[in-house]
């Protein structure tokens, strides 16, 4: 089963994503901060990571960098309330950048598209 790691410090977001993404048929793993996300990325070897940026302590961009140091092919979808991070070069290694919304359609479509492309084989 496809495993998706969700890193977000807000419990309400994690609960919302648990309900919505489980309907997509993914096995979900959750982390409430960046350090925990890095650890779970090692343990659960997810197929994709949904990463919040603003979290207590280490931010999601730094966590993404560390995850990619270990697994450079790991797709990370940045999912933040702020669109301004999109201009930062440090966010560019993310596979996609989706601004948070109560409507999860864009996020779910993005995750599905990336996982489909991934399952169809590497492009390089």
């Amino acid at each position, binding site marked *: 089963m496809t495993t998706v790691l969700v890193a977000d410090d807000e419990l309400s977001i994690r609960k919302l994503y648990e309900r919505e993404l489980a309907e997509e048929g993914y096995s979900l793993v959750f982390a409430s901060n960046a350090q925990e996300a890095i650890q779970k990325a090692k343990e659960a070897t997810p197929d994709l990571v949904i990463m919040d940026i603003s979290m207590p302590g280490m931010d999601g961009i730094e966590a993404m960098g560390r995850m990619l140091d*270990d697994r450079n092919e790991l797709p990370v979808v940045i999912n933040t309330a702020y669109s301004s991070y999109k201009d930062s070069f*440090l966010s560019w290694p993310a596979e996609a950048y989706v601004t948070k919304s109560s409507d999860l359609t864009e996020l779910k479509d993005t995750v599905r598209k990336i996982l489909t492309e991934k399952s169809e084989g590497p492009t390089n």
Partner: protein
Amino acid sequence: MRPLKVLPMLLAGGIGERLYPLTSNRAKPAVPFGGNFRVIDFTLMNCVLSGLRNTHLLTQYHAQSLNRHLLERWNFLSSELGEYIELVPPKLRAAHGVYRGTADAIYRNLDLLDRSRPDLVLVLSGDHVYRADYGKFIQAHVEREADVSVLTGSVDPGEASSFGVINIAQHSSSGSSVSTTDGRITSFIEKPADPSPYAVDGRCLINLGVYCFETTFLVEQLVADAKTKSAHDFGKNILPASLDQGTVLSCPLDVISPDAAPYWRDVGSLDSYFKTSMDLLASPSPFDLSDPRWVHNSRFREWVPALYTTSAMCDGKAVHGKNLVSSGVRIEDSAVVNCIISPRVVIARGCELEGCILFPDAEVGEGTKLRRVIVEEGVRVPAGTRIGFGEDARQFMTSPDGVVAIPGNRHFACTAAPALEETPEAVVGRSETAPVFQGAPEGARG
């Protein structure tokens, strides 16, 4: 229109294995060159003389040697005016510890690009000896609306197989192969066994390792490459991949060199280092350190060592040549010819030195004979030593072309001094009590 913001990123992290033992305790760009310079000085001088006074220097192996050199030599830049040379060590967070390639070195420092937000990134290498006006390079890049400009040299096909070869040929409608009129690069071939198919008018274009990138284009290429299992190298990966993504143009060194006959050398091996050094002593020299077009009215003219012609008897033969001699050198009554002598070197009397390079603070004892020898910093060569006459392959690191390198940790067994009258000046480098200088490497004492 606001001026373009250009950020030079100077790659100075190579391990320099082919230059060993000169790189056993220092970074390759920190290897002494031309008596009073370090290899990296030439790229840094190019930067400053091109008006680029804010350089990030990406270090890795033996970074302290570069740090020391920058503190001593390059401390004239004014941080109050926004001028700096910033040493950037590798990020320790990297799981791999060290940079995996030249492209990885910049990818792992995207935060620097994000912070300074330059329009253009100039990617430079710290182990090349050449003169170039990067301002003209940037101007050509902008005028031709390139995404990447690659500085290129031109060599005979017979010499091209050790370089990255650049192909600017394209197939015409008639099926023949012709050069692109704007220098558009059509392929990169890394060290081809037979470069002749890529020759144009009997010459091959080679990649000189100097690039000008549109910043966003560079970041896009670095990010895409980081997700692959490539060597993360500019020449092997980034540039070939860029051909499908944007406009990649060749900029010949002739266009941006202040010299009528452009000169560029990679000092990556002992032999190329030695040969490039000896070029400084040639008549006429293809790379004159004191060329006024380069050092006129700049502080760099103070760095140029004295150059003089001389004749001397070496091994029974008359040899005519030149010497480059730095400050604080003391030479007693000795035959020294075609040598490059760094600061504070001491050569006792009765020596014969031909075609040698002496690093700072080296001492040569009386009656010593050296030929095509590189003497490391601080080494004390005992009186009566004879090196470079064909019997050193087992004792010393000897290059394929027969250049002998005496490493810094080298200790010598005591040898008998020649029958010279003892004077206070003649005892330099000799020890009356200790039969062996300290710290001899394994196997060196026999």
